[in-house]
């Protein structure tokens, strides 16, 4: 399959990229890893007339802790998250998630920024970002603005990134104290989208009470979804088995899965309940060992 014809540019600075975006308006698309966009163009679901390849712009790929945040450059590849020592030590959720995203070849190309900017509730990073309380830095020729992740996803393939803008950085409140996180999705086969997926983050105080909780759900709602009622149930309380059971039930009740070839609604709600329970337990265990 061959995409419709388009023009291609590979700018070497963000300023050049902004100028190209301005010149071509919403006819232009940013090419990051390309492993969602190029298949869509080959299937002719998407036919931008101009591709702006930002892979040759230096300085957009990094993983670092700075100013109380974990900062991840938008062009950081999934494989770099998978291989990062910092991630392996403190942010287990990324290790869990990247292990399950697509397959090794795709992870060599796919970027975290592209995964978010694609705006697909079936992707895995959106739920992870919701659980971790991330914010997203969006840049344009006017400067930079920061958008909380809860205000980032607008609709199917639609995000807060406007024409002329490029997602440049993801910021996550740095892990401190008894902090733990975990992600799992049920997939039919390697590389499939989730039948359902759950991202969980907890922070415990010295008495083992939950002081922070984040739960994000993958592919069981039209938009990436925060399980707010589950989070509220946990915060301020001792995460007992009964409370975890309750939080898991809330998540399964509050999501809105649709029936498809991966399962019917009842099955997916069941998955959400089971995975939420398991990921909360794993995140709590990791927090206790942090």
């Amino acid at each position, binding site marked *: *399959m061959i995409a419709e014809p388009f023009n291609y540019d590979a700018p070497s600075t963000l300023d050049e990229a902004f100028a190209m975006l301005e010149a071509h308006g919403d006819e232009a698309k940013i090419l990051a890893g390309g*492993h969602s966009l190029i298949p869509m163009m080959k299937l002719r679901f998407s036919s931008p007339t101009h591709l702006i390849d930002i892979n040759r712009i230096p300085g957009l790929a990094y993983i670092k802790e700075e100013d109380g945040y974990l900062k991840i450059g938008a062009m950081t590849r999934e494989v770099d998250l998978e291989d990062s020592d910092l991630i392996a030590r403190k942010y287990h959720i990324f290790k869990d998630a990247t292990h399950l995203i697509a397959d*090794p070849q*795709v992870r060599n190309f796919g970027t975290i920024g592209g995964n978010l900017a694609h705006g697909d509730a079936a992707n895995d990073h959106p739920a992870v970002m919701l659980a971790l309380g991330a914010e997203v830095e969006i840049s344009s020729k006017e400067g930079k603005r920061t958008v909380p992740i809860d205000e980032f996803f607008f609709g199917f393939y639609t995000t807060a990134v406007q024409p002329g803008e490029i997602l440049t950085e993801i910021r996550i409140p740095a892990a401190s104290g008894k902090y733990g996180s975990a992600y799992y999705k049920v997939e039919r086969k390697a590389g499939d989208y989730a039948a359902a997926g759950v991202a969980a983050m907890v922070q415990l105080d010295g008495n083992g009470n939950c002081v922070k909780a984040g739960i994000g759900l993958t592919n069981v709602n039209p938009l990436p979804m925060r399980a707010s009622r589950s989070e509220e149930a946990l915060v301020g309380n001792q995460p007992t088995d009964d409370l975890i059971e309750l939080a898991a039930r809330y998540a399964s009740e509050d999501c809105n899965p649709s029936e498809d070839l991966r399962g019917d609604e009842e099955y997916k709600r069941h998955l959400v309940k089971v995975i939420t329970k398991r990921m909360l337990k794993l995140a709590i265990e990791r927090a206790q060992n942090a």
Partner: protein
Amino acid sequence: MKKSITLTVNGTAHTIEVEPRTLLVHAIREILNLTGTHVGCDTSSCGACTILIEGKSAKSCTVLAVQANGKSITTVEGLATAEGLHALQEGFHLNHALHCGFCTPGMMLRAVELLEKNPNPSEEEIRWGISGNLCRCTGYNNIVKAIQYASAKMEGRELPSTEPEFV
């Protein structure tokens, strides 16, 4: 409008003209006439088109040729040397790790990077490591054995048995 790009494939630089929409796999197969790289699903699922770009395994049906401008590429034609077959080729041969052979070039190129990053992988790590490559003939067991054989050979360990396994 065509673009002029330079690809260094298996050590040889080629400057070619491509449309921006030309896929890397088509540039390799149809312009450079290196047909060892296959097109299977054409949707980045099956891995038959796997090559190495700067040493990293990639599905060349999902990469534009222009994206690879200036990059170094390895295809299956670049695995063997004047000294003989690559350890992976030898492993696939001795372990009967192919029937129709369609997935084999992609499997081997993927395994090159897998062994580069993890020279002595467990069976589980091999199976997860080739999870982006589909084989519809062998059932994978002999492919796993072939990769274990190559791992042992490249690491100088004792070579595992290559007796065929009938299941």
